[in-house]
């Protein structure tokens, strides 16, 4: 059995700016991995590489055993139909209704009869609590509803691996908890593997089997949440305690450069 996600020596960069450096990551079948880290630390970039949207500057990425950038179109499509991706802003197609959005992967990739497809769609929408919104267009929905609809689309084909970019960010606590529980349930029922990028510690506590913490392109911590609490890395503890990094002292600042006598007091 190949790893659901296998990343070796990944280096990512935009122009000259290196985002990720020599990153190794193996995700086991059926585990929920959450990726943590400050803004701009490369979490979303990691996700984009995992699903083949970006080409690594170095290293290899294998999704369900396949290197998407080397694969031919048929293989790629086959692997992508076994993968679900929930984008940060939902990324629903605005020209289609919610129901059509969820139906899209089913229509394009399966031979299911139309009646069955529409039942699957209604079921998935009902699972995310959007049964009544089926006929609406994405711009008519609130941000939280869009995200839930996008989750329904991501799980339309019952994927083996699900990637979520901030599944519960910007949602009220109840809805967020609902999404977290849904992700757990799906994992428990279908042995679905989940890789979730998140900022929300509350969400991490609910779903994470394993935590990967990134900082400026490097892995700062990897292990369970309990191990994370025990970690003696200062940056990890700061993150858990929501503490801002220590401010730089007087030297090298503008004030110091103005040689203020106040400094000596």
């Amino acid at each position, binding site marked *: 059995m190949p790893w659901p996600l296998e990343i070796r020596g990944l280096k990512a960069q935009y122009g000259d700016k290196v985002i990720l450096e020599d990153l190794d990551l193996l995700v086991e079948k059926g585990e929920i991995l959450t990726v943590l880290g400050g803004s701009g630390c490369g979490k979303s970039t990691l996700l984009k590489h995992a699903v083949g949207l970006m080409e690594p500057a170095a290293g290899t990425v294998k999704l369900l055993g396949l290197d998407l950038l080397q694969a031919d179109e048929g293989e790629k499509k086959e692997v992508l139909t076994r993968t679900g991706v929930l984008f940060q802003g939902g990324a629903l197609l605005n020209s289609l209704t919610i129901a059509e959005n969820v139906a899209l992967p089913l229509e394009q990739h399966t031979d299911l009869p139309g009646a069955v497809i529409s039942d699957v769609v209604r079921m998935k929408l009902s699972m995310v609590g959007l049964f009544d919104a089926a006929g609406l267009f994405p711009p008519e929905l609130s941000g939280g509803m869009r995200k839930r609809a996008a989750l329904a689309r991501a799980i339309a084909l019952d994927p083996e691996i699900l990637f979520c970019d901030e599944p519960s960010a910007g949602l009220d606590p109840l809805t967020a908890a609902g999404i977290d529980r849904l992700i757990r349930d799906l994992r428990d029922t279908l042995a679905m593997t989940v890789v979730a990028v998140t900022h929300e510690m509350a969400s991490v506590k609910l779903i994470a089997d394993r935590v990967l913490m990134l900082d400026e392109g490097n892995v700062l911590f990897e292990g369970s949440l309990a191990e994370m609490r025990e970690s003696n890395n200062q940056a990890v503890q700061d993150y858990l305690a929501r503490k801002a990094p220590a401010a730089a002292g007087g030297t090298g600042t*503008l*004030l110091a450069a103005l040689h203020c006598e*106040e400094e000596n007091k």
Partner: protein
Amino acid sequence: MGEAGPRLSFEWLPDESRPRELVLRGVLDKVSVPAVYKALRTKILRGVSLSIDLENVERVDSAGIAMFADLLRSAKEKGCALKVSRLSKQAGHAFQVFRFKSLSEAVTRIEPPYLERKGQDLIEFLAAAKELLLLCADTFTWALTSPFVRRPYRKGAALEQAVILGSRASGIVALISFIVGLTMALLSATQLRTFGANVYVADMLALAMTRELAPLLTAILVAGRSGSAVAAEVATMKVTEEIDALRTLGLEPVRFLIVPKLYAITFTQPLLTVISAIFGILGGMLIGMLLLNLSPQTFIHQTARALILKDILSGLLKSVVFGWIILVVGAFNGFRVSGGAEGVGRVTTSAVVQAIFGVIVADAIFSLLFWYS
């Protein structure tokens, strides 16, 4: 003594020694900074070292702090000193809160040198040209292979696009062509009447509309209403990650979005061109009836004699190529969007301008080709 509005006064201490000492009183904020800044900068540019007393300043805001960053930069360039001798408590806080990460961030100028910028522009231009060619290759390869692939795009998408790109444009194309035909006939009528050659208005219009004006007018209108729409649609989808979402759903964006439009425009563009030619000639006929004493029968008869199959076919061939140019240029601009809603507006504009430019250049090339054949 100087005044920077009622809220801030500054006082030069009489001592002529270096550095000159200055006492500020009042509020140093975005309202009072301009006047102080000007006064201090004048001194610094003359190479005068300054020592500034902020003890009596009630309030300093970020503009005040930024002023010091800029003055310090100028002072360094001039090789003179800039000091803050005493601070009020609030000013001390302000320096702590409104801070740069490091001094170098505070005093560096951010602007690449001229040549570097030009070189960057050139590199970007070449990259864009390469992308355009790749997009053309993708679009046409997939257009040719899609009929043999299972479900390349949503069922009915091509027909839906034909309605959007074609039938909804027919009204405006007909109206504009009618008016242009009318104007052309009017212009030439004055000349032709002198020779008593009224009836040749029909010949001229038939030739001009089928060979040149109908394809060109249609293309310019379609570039304006559909080229921009394609660019805006694709750009918006890219900005909202819908394009990425399509990819992860195993749907190739060019094939899913552009190919149905290509099929549609390949049919609608010639049809619109035919409509344009017909209405242009009708416009001329109206002038013929009203001002040139030509009966509709005579006009139609004369037109039919003037029409040449080769002209009609070359016009239609041109129109198809124009349609493709509009579509590919629109899609190209859509895909290369960067930076949010403002970027969408920018690429939409350039889609229209480039499409019209491309169409006119292509038209000139066609004219040369048909001239020699």
